[in-house]
């Protein structure tokens, strides 16, 4: 147990000053700007927004700078900041069919309505270090090919057509389960009501959407390796911008607030059917702030694994254990409890020390007397 301590103010102040100087690094190197972080370390910004559960690029960039690039620390800062703000309301659920697509791929259908666009992706790169990036010369960036139809603006009524979902294609034939219907009930909000178990799918999705990418990646991977095996296909991944709108009471209508970037993953999994349901494909779903494909895929794998009970599957693996997964996927909670161990535990440890000394003394006495040695748990 942690017991409050006092003293050390000067040392703490000096340590924080030293932290500030270390953060700045060599003063001969130009200081990094938030615009540079937001523009050039965009995926770090996306991760902080997703797991900080707070969509604000500038704020995430600031958190990354302050945390010296420690993303979990930055996520912690974002979460702390959000507690200082009032909540104006809840958005209309975003419509990912109306997404302005910047990437859209399917691993299940090569020719699907809307087609496949790769967008800005690491896929199909050779993962060879590009020494050209080691210099700051801008010559390595290729300008997009000039096109014959340079947008003039005036006439360019640019509209991305609604992009059908892969799941709808299968759904038309009844080959895949439908998404759970919207019955009008407000979903649980785990930032207002602490998680309780069983949590229900909306609460699970909220927890997974803000959960640690590494933890969910490992759990998702475990399902592929045979722990809660359910053979997934990536039906579709899309990334792009969607409009968010907020119903405003004093106006009596919803105000379009602007656009946010999202990554969505629709997994298609096998299901052999049950007494009441014919064999059909089932679904796992991932939706994440920013461009976070690995996270969206991991979320979809874990979402599907957690649905074992409703699908009548056997519980055999950690990824299916709702309490285990949801209680440990939040890296702010996790880092708080792990890292508190380094804070002063002097009083607690003194008690343990006394206990071990007493037990050793008793042990020595008993041994001398030839009595059987009682065992006792030292640390409680």
């Amino acid at each position, binding site marked *: 147990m942690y017991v409050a301590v006092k003293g050390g103010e000067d040392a703490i102040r000096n340590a924080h000053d030293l932290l500030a100087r270390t953060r700045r690094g060599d003063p001969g190197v130009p200081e990094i700007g938030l615009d540079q972080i937001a523009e050039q370390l965009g995926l770090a910004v996306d991760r902080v927004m997703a797991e900080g*559960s*707070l*969509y604000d690029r*500038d704020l995430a960039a600031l958190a990354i700078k302050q945390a010296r690039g420690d993303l979990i620390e930055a996520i912690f800062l974002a979460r702390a900041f959000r507690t200082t*703000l*009032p*909540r*104006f*309301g*809840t*958005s209309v*659920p*975003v419509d*990912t*069919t109306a997404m*302005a*697509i910047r*990437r859209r791929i399917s691993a299940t259908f*090569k020719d699907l309505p809307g*087609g*496949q*666009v790769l967008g800005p992706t690491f896929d199909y790169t050779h993962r060879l270090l590009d020494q050209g990036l080691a210099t700051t010369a801008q010559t390595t960036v290729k300008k*997009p*090919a000039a*096109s014959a139809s340079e*947008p003039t*603006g*005036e006439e*360019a*009524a*640019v*509209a991305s057509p*609604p992009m059908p979902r892969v*799941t709808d294609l299968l759904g038309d034939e009844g080959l895949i389960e*439908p*998404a*759970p*219907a*919207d019955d009008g009930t407000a*979903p649980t*909000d785990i930032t207002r009501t602490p998680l309780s178990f069983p949590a229900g*799918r*909306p609460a699970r*999705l*909220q927890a997974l959407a803000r959960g640690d990418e590494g933890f969910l990646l490992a759990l998702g991977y475990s399902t592929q390796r045979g722990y809660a095996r359910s053979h997934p296909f990536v039906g579709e991944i899309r990334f792009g911008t969607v*409009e*968010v709108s*907020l119903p*405003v009471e*004093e*106006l009596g*209508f*919803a*105000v*379009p*607030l*602007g*656009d946010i970037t999202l990554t969505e993953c629709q997994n298609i999994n096998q299901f052999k059917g049950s007494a009441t349901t014919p064999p059909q494909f089932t*679904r796992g779903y991932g939706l994440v*702030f920013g461009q976070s494909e690995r996270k969206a895929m991991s979320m979809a794998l874990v979402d599907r694994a957690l649905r074992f009970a409703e699908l009548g599957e056997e519980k055999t693996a950690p990824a299916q254990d709702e309490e285990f997964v949801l209680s440990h996927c939040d890296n702010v909670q996790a880092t708080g409890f792990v890292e508190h161990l380094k804070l002063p535990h002097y009083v607690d440890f003194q008690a343990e020390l006394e206990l071990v000394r007493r037990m050793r003394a008793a042990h020595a006495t008993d041994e001398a007397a030839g009595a059987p040695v009682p065992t006792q748990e030292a640390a409680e």
Partner: protein
Amino acid sequence: MIPDTPPEAAATPAGAPGFPLPPTDGATPEVAQRQAVMGLLNRATLAELQAAIERFQPLPKVHVLRPPEVGLVMVQGRTGGDGAPFNLGEATVTRAAVHLDGGATGVSYLLGRAPEKAKAAALLDALWQDPALRIAVEDALRPLRRRLAAEAARTQQDTDATRVNFFTMTRGED
């Protein structure tokens, strides 16, 4: 996605291709147009809004009903993309409201922490509600529409350049 068309055309039904309007029950054309303008203002830079306001100098006296305030909106998604809603995470939002002497009350709610922008957007919303000024406000926002349309066109062009066709290879002897 902002098409470079004046908002008369935006009074098309909600969800029409090219101008996804927020779902509102029984939205009148007037409401739909105001939503479209608010969506446009919210995608502007502060400089663009200030340039638009400049055209209306001298302004009537502006009463700040609600000073710009930063808060959060919980963004919801839908399970499977089209199913029951769930809470995805929050976004920062700034809101403001102004009243023009002898005119309308303008309101703004926009993504991000931008007090000055929220105030400017509320002011333009108030000006737009005056039927006598509406055409002039639309005209003042034309450069903004043009920029957004050009940016969207550029993004779509860049994205289209990465369109792929995968071919399945035949395996075996045949």
